[in-house]
Structures are given as structure tokens and as C-alpha cells.
């Protein structure tokens, strides 16, 4: 009887808690809740130092505000499905015209200083992000085609997002992390943007940094180490399936180690708990250490491709050289160039066999989005020669390069950013293969900023022939770049005349907008498939190949992702669910 009562008691407790609690799903980790141990310190290393604690000024990919907030907002993504699920929101409703989403905010969440987290926090955070004078990096994410997304507080625990048009990325916009209105609001009212800019610099005392996420700052030593400690307020509403508060860890320590060789040394010495080695040499050193029993660790080689692209782009705007311009605008020529890119050789030589070929703008890691049936213009020098012959390049000159009937030789300059050894190697492979079919490619490595300047210049006559470069970033909801696909886009690198030159560019432009406003995932994927088919035919840029992601961790850690969701997108683990085994 007593037992039954106790059981009822527990059930009631769980029931009461679930209204306010976000339960971290079991399927996000390989460990059962009863295996998890509390306490201990997770030790990691990053390449570059932190620059600010201020969430409105931070600009780099790995930054302190994202770390302490856990990078989650009203909604978050379930890595097992990729779907948006309610997180700081309890639920949402979408208006019939799909332009308004109303979120019910979870009650009982608190900032680390004990104040409740309410709708005001989102409103203030949004206000400051969208103040031009602050210069927040998130500014652009609150606009669709230049029109603002508006947030409205209905009551303390209800907030409405009003979109200027239907948007596939609506939830991504709503997923931004809130910051305490009671800290930033008064300063913003009194001193405006200038006041905000002076807040939470690196010299701010750690105890003054208020967090709504899993971590608080314990200490920071410039250029050396950031130590985070568990935020107890977070554990009150974040639990594992057994009802234990999260995170399990007491501390999360991040060393700043600028040199990847030194990072590797620290990992091999057992001083840091995880890393993602990027070179074949580093991978083999870790494997050797594991095999020889010097290091008790796990490495998942080729877990997934990385979430970035790498390509060769030809310049369509060369008014000063009509011969080259017509060549670069010809899809036959670009197809021939795709046929001389030996993607397998790039993977074998540049990435030591640990890479993935690419054919469209969708990163290979986004498997849901990849159209498996796009035409691929693989390495095939004979086919390349045939296509060039069709363009009239049938004879060779004294030096063995192809010329047309008027004696004009196919020759172009190829540039990439100096110092990127992998891209330089790719360029040299292309130069060699091009020479075999009789195309003269002059390779030059130039300074990154100069390269970007050339690439993004606009007008009818731009200063480069061809460039090898890559892009990263972009969403999972609609993986096409808002700056890249539209013909007026700033990153529409092949043609910056400001207008579409090829009818297929116009088509892509239209499909891009259709996809961005399509809310049905399946339909959006179909549009994405169609876009990839057009891309593969048009070859606005020629995709090459990229490296893979190889996460490694010390076996003192538990709670990593199941193999199926270890990827460059979801990473190797949720830090909140990570624990120290021994």
C-alpha cells in the first residue's frame, strides 16, 4: 500500500513537473539516464580567443553568449528528425494565413539571478538586435526581403511573431536566444545603442553575466581559458527522462589553443576531452595512439561530410574580353570544365581519401535535401575534349594548346586564396588536367581580401577569370543562399551584372522565392530537387569536393549522440547530456 502511494506520489510529481519541464529525449544520447553520473569537468579547446560576452556584439561562430545560452530559444531542432520542437515555448499556434505564429512561453523558467523569463525578454532582445546603431550580426535575420518581422507581446507568457510573408525559415527566426530584459532594457532606454555596446565586455565581472541557459561564467583568462559552471536555474526546468536536472557536469572548461598541432598534443596527452581533427596526419596519430593503447578514446572517421561547399566559379562579366566572356557564358564550356575536375583525385590527394565529391549547391551532409538523380558531369577528359571541339576548338598550337579557327587559344587565369594549402592543391590538379586536354590555366594564389574584392565586384567588366572558393553557413529549412541564388544577390558570384543573363538563372531565382515561402516541407524538397537539376545543367559554378567530419572523444566522456546523428550539423554530443564516466 505504501509502495503504491509512493508510486502515485511520483506519478503526480512527474505530471506536475512536465507542464514546466523540458524533458531531454532519451534518443539524443546513447546513455541511459541511470548510467549518467553527476559532476566533473568537461575540457575542450578552441582555436580563437573570445572577443566579448555581449550577445548583441558577438560576431564569430563560436562565442560565449551562444555557449552559455545553449543556443536554443522558443523552439529548437530535434537532431533525430531535424524538426522544430517547442523548447522555451510550451506550444504554438499558426494563424490561418500562415503569417502569424503565437507562442505560449513555458512558465517557471528563471534567469540565473532568479528573475522569471517572460515575453519581455524576447521583445527587448529583438529590439536591440534590430537597432541599426548597435550593429548586431543577427540584424539581417529579422528581415525578409528587406521587410521587418515584428514581435508582439500579448501577455507575459504569450508572444506573437508577425511575418511580412510566409517563410520557410519562420521557426529559425523564432529560435533566437533571449537575453534578460531587466539587465539590458534599462541601459538601452537610458543610453541607447552606445550603452549596450559598453556592456558585457570581456573585462566584465563573471558574476554580472546573467544566463538563461545551461552555463554561467566562472572565470575567463584572456587568451587562455574560459571556465563555465552549471547554472542551477537551468536544471529546474531541463531534466533527463529520469527527472534528473541537467546539465550533469559541474564545469565546462575551454582552453584557447591557437595551433592545431598543440590541440592534438593536448588531446593525445589526455588533457582535452574532444576534438575534430581535420587532416589525415592528425587522424592517423589519434588512431595510432588508440591502437597502441596510449590513449583511451574513440574516433569516428568519415562521420559525415562537412557543412560547406567548394567550387570553381567563372566570371560571366568580362566586357573587355568578349572572347573569354562568351566562353565563360557557354554552358558547354563549363560542362567541359566540370569534366576535367578529377573529384576522386582531389579526395585522394588533397583529403587523403577522406572527403566527399559535390555536384550541387546543397551541402552533401544535408542528405534530406540532396537530389540523388541530378546529372553529374564527372571526370572525363575525352568528353571534355569533345565538348570543346563542338565549340570550335579542334586544332592545337605549337605548345599543344587548343585553338579555334581564328587561332584564339583557350586560356584563363585561376585564382584562390593564398595560404589555403588544400585549395592550392586543388587548383594545381585542375591546371594539370586542363593541360592534358589542351586548355591553358594560369594558377595564382592571391591574398584572401583581394580575392573577395574581385569575386564580389559588380558591373559589366569584373577583374577575374576563374576563382576557387567555398561557402558555409545557411539554413536547414531552405538550404539555398538568399544572397547567392537571386540574380541581384551579393554572392551571385558568376554574374554580377545585376540581372539574370541565362533564362535558367531567372528560373532559379523564381524557384528560390517559391521555396522560401513554401511551408510544406515535402513540397519544399521537391522545389529544391528541381533547383538542383537546373543547377547541374546550368553549372553556374562547378562544385568540386570537400573534406569530411571526424569527431573524436576521450572515453572518459559518456552521453554522445547515437551514430545515426553524429554529423557536422549535430556534432558528436549535446553538452547538457554529457557526463564523466570516470
Amino acid at each position, binding site marked *: 500500500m505504501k509502495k503504491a502511494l509512493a508510486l502515485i506520489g511520483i506519478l503526480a510529481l512527474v505530471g506536475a513537473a512536465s507542464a514546466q519541464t523540458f524533458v531531454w529525449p532519451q534518443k539524443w544520447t546513447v546513455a541511459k539516464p541511470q548510467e549518467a553520473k553527476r559532476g566533473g569537468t568537461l575540457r575542450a579547446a578552441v582555436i580563437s*580567443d573570445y572577443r566579448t560576452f555581449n550577445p548583441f556584439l558577438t560576431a564569430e561562430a563560436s562565442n560565449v553568449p551562444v555557449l552559455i545560452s545553449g543556443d536554443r530559444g522558443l523552439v529548437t531542432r530535434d537532431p533525430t528528425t531535424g524538426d522544430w520542437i517547442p523548447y522555451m515555448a510550451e506550444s504554438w499556434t499558426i494563424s490561418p494565413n500562415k503569417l502569424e505564429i503565437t507562442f505560449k512561453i513555458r512558465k517557471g523558467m528563471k534567469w540565473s539571478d532568479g528573475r522569471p523569463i517572460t515575453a519581455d525578454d524576447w521583445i527587448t532582445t529583438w529590439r536591440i538586435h534590430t537597432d541599426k546603431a548597435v550593429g548586431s550580426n543577427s540584424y539581417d535575420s529579422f528581415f525578409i526581403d528587406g521587410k521587418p518581422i515584428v514581435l508582439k507581446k500579448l501577455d507575459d507568457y504569450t508572444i506573437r511573431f508577425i511575418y511580412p510573408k510566409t517563410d520557410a525559415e519562420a521557426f529559425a527566426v523564432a529560435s533566437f536566444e533571449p537575453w534578460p530584459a531587466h539587465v539590458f532594457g534599462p541601459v538601452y532606454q537610458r543610453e541607447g545603442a552606445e550603452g549596450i555596446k559598453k556592456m558585457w565586455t570581456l573585462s566584465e565581472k563573471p558574476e554580472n553575466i546573467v544566463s538563461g541557459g545551461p552555463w554561467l561564467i566562472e572565470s575567463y*583568462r584572456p587568451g587562455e581559458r574560459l571556465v563555465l559552471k552549471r547554472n542551477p536555474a537551468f536544471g529546474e526546468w531541463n531534466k533527463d527522462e529520469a527527472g534528473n536536472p541537467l546539465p550533469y557536469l559541474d564545469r565546462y572548461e575551454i582552453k*584557447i589553443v591557437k595551433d592545431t598541432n598543440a590541440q592534438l598534443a593536448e588531446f593525445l596527452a589526455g588533457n582535452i576531452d574532444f576534438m575534430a581533427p581535420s587532416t589525415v596526419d592528425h587522424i592517423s596519430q589519434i588512431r595510432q595512439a588508440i591502437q597502441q593503447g596510449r590513449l583511451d578514446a574513440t574516433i569516428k572517421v568519415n562521420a559525415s561530410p562537412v557543412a560547406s561547399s567548394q567550387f570553381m566559379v567563372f566570371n560571366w562579366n568580362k566586357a573587355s574580353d568578349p572572347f573569354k566572356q562568351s566562353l565563360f557564358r557557354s554552358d558547354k564550356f563549363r560542362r567541359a570544365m566540370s569534366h576535367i575536375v578529377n573529384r576522386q583525385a582531389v579526395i585522394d590527394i588533397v583529403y587523403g581519401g577522406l572527403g566527399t565529391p559535390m555536384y550541387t549547391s546543397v551541402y552533401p551532409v544535408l542528405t534530406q535535401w540532396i537530389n540523388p538523380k541530378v546529372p553529374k558531369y564527372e571526370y572525363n577528359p575525352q568528353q571534355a575534349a569533345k565538348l570543346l571541339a563542338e565549340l570550335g576548338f579542334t586544332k592545337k598550337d605549337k605548345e599543344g594548346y587548343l585553338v579555334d579557327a581564328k587561332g584564339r587559344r583557350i586560356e584563363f587565369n585561376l585564382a584562390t586564396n593564398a595560404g589555403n594549402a588544400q585549395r592550392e592543391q586543388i587548383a594545381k590538379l585542375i591546371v594539370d588536367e586542363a593541360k592534358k586536354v589542351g586548355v591553358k590555366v594560369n594558377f595564382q594564389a592571391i591574398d584572401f581580401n583581394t580575392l*573577395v574584392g574581385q569575386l564580389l565586384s559588380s558591373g559589366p567588366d569584373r577583374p577575374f577569370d576563374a576563382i576557387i572558393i567555398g*561557402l558555409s553557413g545557411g539554413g536547414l529549412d531552405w538550404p539555398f543562399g538568399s544572397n547567392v541564388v537571386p540574380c541581384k544577390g551579393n554572392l551571385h558570384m558568376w554574374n554580377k551584372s545585376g540581372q539574370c543573363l541565362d533564362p535558367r538563372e531567372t528560373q532559379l531565382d523564381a524557384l528560390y522565392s517559391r521555396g522560401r515561402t513554401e511551408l510544406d516541407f515535402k513540397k519544399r524538397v521537391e522545389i529544391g530537387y528541381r533547383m538542383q537539376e537546373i543547377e547541374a545543367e546550368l553549372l553556374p559554378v562547378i562544385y568540386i569536393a570537400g573534406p569530411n567530419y571526424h569527431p573524436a572523444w576521450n572515453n572518459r566522456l559518456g552521453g554522445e549522440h547515437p551514430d545515426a546523428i553524429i554529423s557536422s550539423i549535430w556534432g558528436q554530443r549535446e553538452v547538457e547530456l554529457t557526463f564523466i564516466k570516470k
Partner: protein
Amino acid sequence: MTAYILRRILYLIPTFFGATFLAFLIIQMAPGDYLTQLELDPKVTPETIARLRAQFGLDRPIYEQYLLWMNNLLHLNLGYSFAFQAPVLEVIWPRVVNSMVIVIPSTLLLYLVAIPIGVYGAVRQYSLGDRILSFLAYVGLSVPSFFLALIAIYILLQIKFKTGTLPFPVSGMTSTGFEQLPPLRQLLDIAWHAVVPILVATANDIAGLSRLMRGQMLEVLGQDYIRTARAKGLAERVVLYKHAFRNAVIPFVATLGGLLPSLISGAGFVEVVMAWPGITPFFLDAIANQDLYVIAGFLTVSLVLLMIGNLISDLLLAWVDPRIRYE
């Protein structure tokens, strides 16, 4: 003498303006600016970049930027870091202090070791000891310091694999849990971390300095007055230390002033490889990011110290060398 010092200080003023303007110009002449990296981010619009450029004042003509910055300098404000969104001095100073932990002991060690080696090499020229030291010196001269640091890390790791413990840390300046340690233990912890970087930083410079000392000493030993000293029957020890050595170190006195800027300029690539939170990795980042005022501000401080250092050198030289007079 006072008149000389005053005159020298007056000369420094045009030098200062010339040098800072040149530095500013050269930094600005590099292609692109701090915001260029943002331009390849598919999420950032060109309007946003243009707005930030205006906010940072990067859209104004160079001379205007220079004058604004000069005006700040005269108010003892080195400028503002774009990357850190904070005053330059505030972000630079902690790194400089960290670097000094390596630079000061390593400089002392350098003079303590290199000068005796140089003297020994000159006195026992072509002896076995001299040959071994010369050989090591050439090795030291030709191995870049970052590589020496990597070798040190490699050796430490091998010791760890053989014995299970690290004799010295492979990177960083402090251990985990540093904040919880009592002050004395904190000091020891930093010292423990500094041993390998100090040795690596010193090893490279020993080679150069000891060769210089050896050359100086040999030159002096070949002078007539040394022969005279020996001829009048002075003990070899007195000849060497009272006559030869004192004259041979005069050029080194002149380099002492040059140590002043090197105190703040960091220990070089050792800091990068061994993750020492010094000024070198920080400054390299600033250059890579084109964080204009961090570069310009740091160069200015170095410049001022260099000018003061040169003045001190000249004064010291007059003091130790009776042949020099500034009247």
C-alpha cells in the same frame, strides 16, 4: 648633456609623426578591411556591411582616419578594437604582461648563458669545446623557434607515453582549477608552465648572441693593447677580464636600450605553438583580421619604447665608453 637630451627629444617628435603615419598608411594599404571577411557570409547583406563600415569610420579618407586617431593618441587613447569592441589598451595590456613572464626570464637567461659561451669560444678558439658549441649554435640559428617548440611538445608527449606523466605541460599558462589555488601555488603553477617556453625562446637567441660575443672578443684579443698587456707580464686572467672583456661588451651595452621595446613585443611563435596567452598570437590575429587600431596602437607603443630605448642606449654608451662625448 641636458641640452643634448633635450635636443634628442625634440628630434623624436617629427620621427614619431612620420613613423606613425607610415605605419597607419601601410596597414591601410593592405587590400580589404576588417569587414571583408563578413562579405562571404551568405546571411549578411551588403547594406549591413556598408552600415558597419560607416560606424567604424572605415569609409572615410585615410588622412581623416589618421587625424582622428592622432587626436585620440594625444589624449592617451590608443583607439578602439573592432574585434573586441573595447579600448585597445584594455585588450592588449593583459597579453603583454603574460608575454613578459616568458620574455624577462628568457632575456636574463640569454645574457647569463650566451656571454660566457661567447667568451669561452674566443679564448679557447678551435678547441673541442668551441667546436661543439659552434656546431650547436649553428643548429640553434637554423632551427625556427616554432619548430623547436613542436619538438619540445613531441618529446614531452613521448615521455608521457613512456612514463604516464607529463614532466611539463604541453601548452597553456595555468592549470585547470587555477583560480581555486592559493596565491603561492598560482605562482608556482605559472612558473611550471613557463619552463619549456622560456627554454625554447632562449635557445634560439643564445646562438646569435654567443656568436656575436665570440666575434667581438676575438677582435679585441687581436688588438695591440692586448699584446702590450701580455708583454708587460700581466696575468692572463687580468688580460682577459679587465682589458679584453670590458672592451668587448661595449657594443652589447648599446643593445640594452633595444631591449625595452622587445619587453612588450612578445616571445614569438613559441607563444602560438604552446598556447601561451601572450601578445604574439593576439597580434597575429589582429593582423589577420585587419583590426586596424590594435595594430596601429601596438606599433605606436613599440615605437615610443624604441625611441626611448635608443636614447638610453646612447647615454649608456657615453657612460661606459670614455671615447664618446655628447658636448
